Structures are given as structure tokens and as C-alpha cells.
């Protein structure tokens, strides 16, 4: 006993960090328009893979800025392919896009990661993770040194991304995170990260482009990027079912610069335990859905269960009766609650007032500016005369 209590502090830490209980995937394409077909195909391929390996749709956040399947230029309406052999329709008949079209913005992405939404946002569009969740973040689009363009209209910087992940870590919104990005100069995007337990990988170094793999003559454009293609090739051919024991190290070792035509980067230093721990993580820890199923053996006695239910019911009825009695005896208690509520709503009004005041101060500033201009003009004309 003495020994065990002495050991406890040593043992405690690994136990706490050992396990995750849910897997989430955030898959983001950031470019619009037909000639960026391959970026949407990238995202959909990843979507299909994580779904195949068991992450349910409710835990996949899919951001697609454009709808290639319904694009008028698409020679195969309703279908998206990631290979010229067109063996696999990525669109299929069951795909749940959480953010589409103009909803894919930098603001929405950061809101998603930090979960800062209005109250009316449906839960299916939110990242409801906790300190036991592993998250896969995959991004693809057009980017440059320390930025990634969203829809040709705005960009997210490596700093914003790092800050968003930093806030997630502070609020314990992830256990471990795998960040993958396929874009030009991708490795600069994760260079600013500072939060622990992030394993990051990107397709190309600074000043290096990331290339597409091949084009489909009938579709008319490139259908997939090289880095994503070889990642998928590994996942499809090696990780065949959710019981796979392959590690992240195996995946990283499969990267062949001659095939990818750029230098994929991997960042291990944020991960607890460094390179070795990160490489020994299972691929299924990020791409699959871990469920430590508990099969129930012998059960409690059924008659006992029924008795218990009856007893609870009696207890509740008793409690209700007492509650009703106490209501009639102490009406004051009720009154106190009622009094407390208006106080709260009053305070709310206060908040609104402050905003109003802000509006006023803005108006005053505006008025002052106008008056200033008028004074300047008057002074000028006075000086002139």
C-alpha cells in the first residue's frame, strides 16, 4: 500500500493522457470554381476514407465551397471522381456537407474551431469536442507563405490558425490533433503552431509548389493532388478495415518525394513524447473511430430491478407530495425566485444600454468631425478675408 501510494504520482500522468474516447474530423476545401475540381475531390476523398473507417457523419465537419457535382461544366452530372478510371463516385448517395458555398469563410472556420456560435447554430454544424477527443484537420486549397486563400476572397494566416488551436488547447477541446494540409508552401502553415499535442504534416516546403496528380480528359481538369493521392493510396490499400494496427510512422514513411514532386514536411516537436511517440500513434487514432465497446456479461437480477423501479416511483411520488406541501406552506420561497429573475433581466437591459451608449459616442464623434470640418472651413475663409 505504501509503495503504491508512492508510485501514484508517477503513474497518474500517463493514465490521464492515455486514452481518447471520440474522433472528429474537420475537412476543409477552400477554393471555388471548376478548375479547382481537384481540391473538392481531395476533400471528398478524405471524407469517404474517414467515413469508411468509422467516424460517423455527426463527427465529421465537411466544408465544401463549391458544388462540382452540379457544375454545368461537369460531363458526369451528380458525380465527382478522384481518378481518371472513374471507378468510385465520391459523391455517392450519402454525403453530409456541413458548410457549403459562401458559408466557407475564415470567420466560420475559426468559429468552428473555437466553438463561438450564436445559440441557434445546430449541433451538427459544431465541433463538440472535449479533452478526450482526437481531431483530424485536413485543409486544401491555394496558399502561399503562411497563408491559405479562402474562396479567392480572403485568407487565413498561419498565426490565426495557431491562435485558434491555442484557444482550443486552453479550453481542453482536444486530446491530440493531426493537422494535414495540401497546398503550395504548405509547411509554412503549421510553422506558427505553439499548442501541445499537435502532429502536423504538409505537402510542400516554403517556395515550393504542390502539384496535381493527373487530369481526366473527359472531366477536363486535374482530379486530385499528388500529396493527397499518395496519402489516400496508402490508406486505401494498407488500412483496409477499422482493426488496422498501422502507425502514423508507416504513413509518413510511405511519402516518396519523387512521386509527390515536393518535400512533404512533418512536425513532431509539439507532440507529447516527441517524434517517437507521434510515429507510434495508430493511424486509426485519427482516421478511425475508437469505441472501447463494453460487452455486458451477467446482469442484475430482473426482479430486483423491477422492485427498484417501483421503489423509486414511490420515492418520487413521496417527494412530489412533499414538494406540493412545502409549496403551500412556504409560498415565500417561490417569491424569492421570482424576485431574482427580474433582477437578471434588468442587468441584461444594462448591457443593451451600454451598446446604445457606444452608438451615442460614435454619433458624437461623427458630429465632432463635422463640426471640426466646419470650423476649419470657417477659419480658413476668415483668414482668407
Amino acid at each position, binding site marked *: 500500500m505504501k509503495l503504491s501510494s508512492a508510485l501514484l504520482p508517477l503513474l497518474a500522468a500517463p493514465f490521464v493522457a492515455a486514452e481518447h474516447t471520440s474522433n472528429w474530423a474537420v475537412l476543409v476545401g477552400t477554393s471555388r470554381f471548376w478548375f479547382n475540381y481537384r481540391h473538392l475531390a481531395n476533400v471528398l476523398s478524405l471524407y469517404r476514407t474517414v467515413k469508411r473507417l468509422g467516424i460517423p457523419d*455527426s463527427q465529421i465537419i465537411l466544408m465544401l465551397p463549391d458544388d462540382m457535382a452540379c457544375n454545368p461544366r461537369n460531363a458526369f452530372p451528380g458525380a465527382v471522381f478522384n481518378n481518371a478510371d472513374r471507378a468510385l463516385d465520391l459523391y455517392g448517395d450519402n454525403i453530409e456537407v456541413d458548410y457549403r458555398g459562401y458559408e466557407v469563410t475564415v470567420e466560420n472556420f475559426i468559429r468552428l474551431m473555437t466553438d463561438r456560435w450564436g445559440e441557434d447554430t445546430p449541433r451538427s454544424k459544431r465541433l463538440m469536442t472535449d479533452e478526450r477527443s482526437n481531431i483530424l484537420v485536413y485543409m486544401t486549397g491555394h496558399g502561399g507563405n503562411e497563408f491559405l486563400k479562402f474562396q479567392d476572397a480572403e485568407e487565413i494566416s498561419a498565426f490565426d490558425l495557431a491562435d485558434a488551436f491555442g484557444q482550443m488547447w486552453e479550453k481542453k477541446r482536444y486530446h491530440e490533433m493531426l493537422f494535414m494540409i495540401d497546398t503550395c508552401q504548405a509547411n509554412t502553415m503549421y510553422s506558427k503552431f505553439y499548442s501541445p499535442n499537435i502532429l502536423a504534416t504538409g505537402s510542400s516546403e516554403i517556395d515550393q509548389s504542390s502539384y496535381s496528380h493527373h487530369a481526366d480528359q473527359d472531366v477536363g481538369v486535374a482530379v486530385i493532388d499528388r500529396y493527397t493521392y499518395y496519402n489516400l493510396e496508402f490508406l486505401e490499400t494498407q488500412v483496409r478495415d477499422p482493426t488496422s494496427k498501422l502507425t502514423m510512422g508507416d504513413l509518413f514513411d510511405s511519402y516518396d518525394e519523387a512521386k509527390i514532386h515536393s518535400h512533404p514536411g512533418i512536425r513532431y516537436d509539439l507532440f507529447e513524447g516527441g517524434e517517437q511517440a507521434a510515429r507510434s500513434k495508430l493511424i486509426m487514432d485519427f482516421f478511425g473511430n475508437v469505441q472501447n465497446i463494453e460487452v455486458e456479461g451477467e446482469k442484475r437480477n430482473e426482479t430486483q430491478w423491477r422492485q427498484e423501479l417501483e421503489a423509486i*416511483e*414511490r420515492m418520487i411520488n413521496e417527494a412530489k407530495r412533499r414538494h406540493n406541501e412545502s409549496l403551500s406552506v412556504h409560498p415565500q420561497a417561490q417569491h424569492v425566485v421570482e424576485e431574482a429573475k427580474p433582477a437578471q433581466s434588468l442587468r441584461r437591459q444594462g448591457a443593451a444600454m451600454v451598446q446604445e451608449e457606444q452608438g451615442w459616442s460614435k454619433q458624437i464623434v461623427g458630429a465632432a468631425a463635422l463640426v471640426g470640418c466646419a470650423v476649419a472651413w470657417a477659419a480658413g475663409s476668415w483668414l482668407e478675408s
Partner: protein
Amino acid sequence: MASPNAADASSAPEPSKETSIIVPRAAKAHNGPPPESKEGIWLRRAAILSFWAVVVLLGLPVWWKTTAIYRAELPLQDMTDWAESKICKPVFPLRIAVESSISSHDAQQLVRLTQHAIDDLNEFSAHHLRLMPATSPYTANSSQEVIIDGTSIRSDDRDNALVIRMIQVETGETPRSQLQSYSPTLDVYYSASQLPAQSSTSSPLASFIAQELHTVFAEEQAQLAYLLAAQPGAQAARTKALSVEKYVELDRQSTKVLKYAPTYHLTFSLFSPSYTPSAWNIEAALRTYLSPLLESFSGISNFTVDSQVQLYATFSPSIHQPEFDEHLKAWTLRKEDLSAFVNAAEWPLSPSIGEGPTVNFILYVPDASQSPLLVKENAGNSWLIPQWGGVHILNVQNVSTTPNVLTAEDLVPAMHTFSDQLTVLFGLPQAPASLPLRISTLERVRAASLIFSASSTLGALAQVYQKMPSIPVPDNVAQSVDSTIAHLQQACHLLREGRFQGALEHARIAEVEAEKAFFERSMVGQVYFPDEHKVAVYLPLLGPVAVPLVMAALKELKGVLASARGR
């Protein structure tokens, strides 16, 4: 070169004479410009000064005002202190009333001795039991009271964690004890001779009671110790009450328990691979078998319930199809395939119903051709999916045909499984045997964990506030933080007083407020501008304006300095 003349001529009627006098001199110094009039110089200076005045007095404040990020004041030090649990050290003083028919003097003596014995046994300082004689002495005939059903809870014992009833008996082994299953009551049977004498300093009866109490509250102590051990600043001494094995077990348990939410949504789904059964009498079954349980949890969380029936539900293609086992005479599923049993891609188990997280309970009725369907490893038919819900395979007895409608009676085994799974998911401890005691244990554990989680959210907010100066912080965040701290203080205070229900209430509010403060939707640090970006934005705009302004001011200053030196 005529311009000075013209200007002077227009500005004053007389200077024509003056100029005519000056002309010869001007002609002499033909290379330099004609000297300015004093008036002209002052006019120019006034013009420059007025431009600068507008820029400095109007432009700068407007720019400052419009680009400043509003950040409400937050009590950062307090927030950090809460997060490091410097302010509140939760303690759990449990009051235990002792009801007995003996004289109050004897009772007090017994209580005093038992208290000593308990204090000696207790290894976990934050959780201690305080015995006190019951206010209304227990006078009824004890031998008859044994068969009491235990539902008669007196209204004044709300704050008592447990009532010990001392029952004097003549026969049977003494002392012995029995924990009532449905009320927080421990019956202790003793014989008259076992009462401690007035002068004695120890008594077998007292130490027996102490040992019993220690056993009853062992699970609760372990859970609380586990919770405290995970907090920052927890001393090693605090965790003495917890063995490593117990720690590992609790840690494993904690991975199953749902994250706390004020409201949970329970979805009961019937899946069938064929067209039958197409209906189930779920409403009656739920009312009979589940709602009592839900009601008893209502002090901790609220529940909403819905149900659905899905026909032609197929397995996902990635799992091994069930195989027929000759030995079991049943179709079997491998254990490693169970995690993929729920076809997440196809089965509509949407999380978006209601406001709280969804807990799924799935009843799967296999096709008649694949019935009975069991788990290969233990021939069981149900399993728990941590933090998600439970699955029960209902093998209909009559194999040849699957009934069209499942009656409430058919659903009994499933309801039994589901209620067991719900208690595990909800974190209800497995011991002791008394259900009200387990629920009140859960209340205490939840109150403590909510206090910790609200505190840690405050700490996270303080960190974010300090590390990211570019995100705006509106006033309502400050209000929420204040309210969180106030409720945390209340909760902590009530814990110390042993009023756990109230503490839980305040802890719940604190948690909600803290979450609201952290997840305030306007606090989005969206656009980080590196300095070069700022230059790129401001230079094209302000450069053309600033250059003439600065140059004019410099030139004028030079002129002033030169003339001052010349004088």
C-alpha cells in the same frame, strides 16, 4: 515672376508705390525669389498649422477610436486563482443522524465514541463524516419498524447524508447492520449489553458502526479523491485514500461517462433489417421502466426523450457479416466488429435534435433468418458504447416469424439493459447498495466536478485574454465572469456547510455562465495582421497625404530656425 506683384496689388491698394521703389533692388538680386510679405508668411503658417491641427486633433482620435478593440476589464487574478484551485478547497462534511431509543446521554456517548473511531479510520481529509444524534429521538417500537418500507423520509433530514437507526434486538447475531436499498438509512441491530458504558473510551459497537460507515462511503471517497487528484495543486497527501488499482478503475470508468450537460436528449431507436417489426409500444415501456430512473436524476440533469423506427437497416459493408456458430446454435458477431455494428453512415442517428447531447439507445431486431444473434465471445446480446449510448439485440423467442408489433412486455429485457446502461453512462456509482445514497453521491461528485470545470474554464479565459490582445471582449463576458465567480463562491460555501443540493445548484449555474463567457460569439480573433500588412494598408492611403504635410512643416520649421539664427 509677376505673381508677387499681382498678389500684392490685389491684397492692398497702396503697395504700388512700394514696389516701384523696390524694383531696382529686385532687379539687382534677380536670382532669388522676391521676399515675402509678413502677412503672406503668417498666412502660410496658419494654413500648415490648421492642417496639422485637423490631423492631430481630429484625425488621430477618430483613427484611434475606430481601430481600438474594446476589451472589458476581467478579474484576471481571481480567475487564475480559481483555476489553480487556490481559493476553494472543496470539503465534504457529511452529516449523519443517529436515531435511537436510548437515553440522550447514552446516545451522545455512543456518537462521541463512534466519531472518534471514524476519524481514526478516515484517510481522506476532505471528506469526513460528522455524526449527530437525531433531533427527534426515535421512539417507535423497534421490532416492528424492521419491516418499514423505507419510503417515509422525514422532511427535516434533507441535509443528512445518512440516517443510522439503532435498533435494539434480543435475538440474532449482534451487532449487525443492514443498508436500506431505497432510503438513505442504515439499520444497526445491537443488544442492550453492547452499549458503551459511560466511562469507557472505546466500544466494539462504536467501532463496528464506524467500520460499516467507512465501507458505505468508500466508493464515494475514492471518486472524490480521484477527482481531486486530477486538479492542479493537489497534494500527494490528499490522494492517500486512493489505491493505484482503484485509480485505474475509476479512470477507465470516467472514459465511459457522458460529459456533463444540463440537458440530455435520449433517442430510442428500433432498427430492423426487414419490414418487421414495424411498431413498438415504446411509450408505455418507457413510462413504466425508465421514467422513474430519469425522475430520480432530475436533480442533476434534465432529459428529453424521443424514439424512432427504422426498417431495412443494413450493416455497414466494412464489418464481417454474422457467422453461424454450431456450438451456440446462434448467429454470432465478433467482438472487434461491434464498434462498427452501428452503421454510422446509413442509420439516421442525428445529433441535432434538441439542445443537449444525444444519448442513443438502439434496439436491433435481427432478421428471422439470422436469429438468434449473439456476441461470439460471451454469448451476450447487449453492449455499451462509451459516451455514446447502448445497443441491445432483441432475439424474438419464436424464431419462425418476427411479430409486427413489439409489446411493452417484449421490450422488458431491452429496457432493463438500457436502464443499466444509462446509469453507467450517467456516472452513477455501483456501490453502495442503497440507491438514494448512490444518487446523493453522484450529486456530490457532480457538484465538485462542475466547480472544477467552471474554474478551469475561467482559467482558460484568463489565458486567452492575456495571450491574445487582438480579440475583443464585450462587457457581457465580464458580467458572466463575475456571476460565475459569485456562484462558485456560493457553491464552495454550501459545500463547506454540507448543503450539497444547493452547492450543485450553484455549481450548475456557474458552469453555464463560465461556458457562456468563454464561448461569447463576438470574441473571434479573426484577423491577425502582421506588421507588414499594416504598412501595406496604411501607406498607399496615408503616404500621399502625409508627404506634403510633413515636408511643408519641415520647410517652415527650417525657415523659422534660419530666421531666428539670422536675427
